[in-house]
């Protein structure tokens, strides 16, 4: 019961830094140059899927630009937070009458990256809302066999070396990302589950309310920072 609530300092707004700034020069260059960013292939697939009729319509039958949209997700409706992947799947099942896409499937990552790419460079617009506190509670709660909270690494010890890795501030600015360690594209939820597995906790399932609440809190924490999707991370 000791220290159930940690008084970890939130990072002052002016000291926030994207994971990009903790990367080496080569990895930054890979992200910056569209022709070397491995996410290019997912963006191309995403564009194809966007325009292709699936079920009764294509995404492009209903929508024109998606500029700015990713900067405003997750969204809260009816007391529940919905992230971009879930919104895409909601459109698929309700409007296109097509089967929802599985989490981490190439198709869902491609469509999400294609949509989010259109907000690249735009500031995250996230207000505090009814689910944000739930996300913060998860971020500050110790968990797993190692009994560590996200905040202990990402608010209190960012910039330090965890073995050979510099601990970033955990901003969700670049997702979906191409991660060199994965040799693959991955969603923000994949990343969050990785950190939970790292502290030897039982990760929440993809699409669970807990992971979306965490996403919501991370977006609030990164409010005003620029989106950089699709980012590259080591």
């Amino acid at each position, binding site marked *: 019961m000791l220290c159930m609530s940690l008084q970890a300092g939130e990072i002052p707004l002016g000291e926030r830094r994207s994971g990009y700034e903790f990367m080496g020069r080569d990895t930054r260059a890979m992200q910056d140059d569209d022709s070397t960013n491995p996410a290019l292939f997912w963006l191309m697939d995403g564009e194809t899927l966007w325009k292709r009729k699936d079920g009764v319509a294509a995404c492009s039958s209903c929508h024109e630009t998606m500029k700015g949209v990713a900067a405003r997700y997750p969204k809260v409706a009816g007391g529940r937070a919905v992230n971009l992947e879930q919104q895409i799947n909601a459109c698929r099942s309700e409007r296109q009458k097509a089967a929802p896409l599985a989490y981490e499937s190439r198709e869902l990552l491609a469509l999400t990256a294609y949509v989010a790419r259109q907000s690249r460079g735009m500031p995250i617009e996230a207000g505090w809302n009814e689910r944000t506190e739930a996300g913060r509670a998860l971020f500050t709660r110790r968990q797993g066999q190692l009994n560590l909270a996200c905040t202990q690494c990402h608010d209190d010890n960012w910039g330090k*070396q965890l073995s050979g890795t510099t601990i970033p501030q955990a901003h969700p600015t670049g997702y979906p990302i191409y991660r060199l360690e994965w040799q693959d594209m991955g969603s923000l939820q994949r990343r969050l589950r990785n950190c939970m597995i790292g502290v030897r906790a039982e990760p929440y399932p993809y699409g669970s309310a807990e992971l979306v609440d965490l996403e919501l809190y991370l977006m609030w924490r990164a409010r005003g920072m620029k989106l950089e999707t699709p980012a590259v991370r080591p």
Partner: protein
Amino acid sequence: MRFLLLILPFLFFGKALGDDAIPASLTGAKGDPQRGRAIVANRQVGLCLLCHSGPFPEERFQGNLAPDLRSAARLTEGELRLRLVDPARANPQTIMPAYYRTEGLTRVAPSLRGKSILTAEQIEDVVAYLVTLK
């Protein structure tokens, strides 16, 4: 009354004081410092070098979230044992995991529930290694 005033501080702080060391071996036997060194250096078993640095010239990447392990020299064997078993008893805010405690944890991965990070034998091996740093 006088007596109460005298012992009052101990009523409050006695636990903290008493909790600063675990003098007796968890197994009743002495650990093996060689095995202890290997546990400390192993990133899947001891995990110590994720956060700490220490006299391991062969290990390239060492952490800097925590003091160098050579600072253990100022602690007694019993103090070291407590800091492995449950470091929160020495510092409630610590980020160092408890290596021999299974209760009071949240959402532990199912395959690890009820298991401590190290066994009693491994704790004694690590303690035996740490006292060699004096």
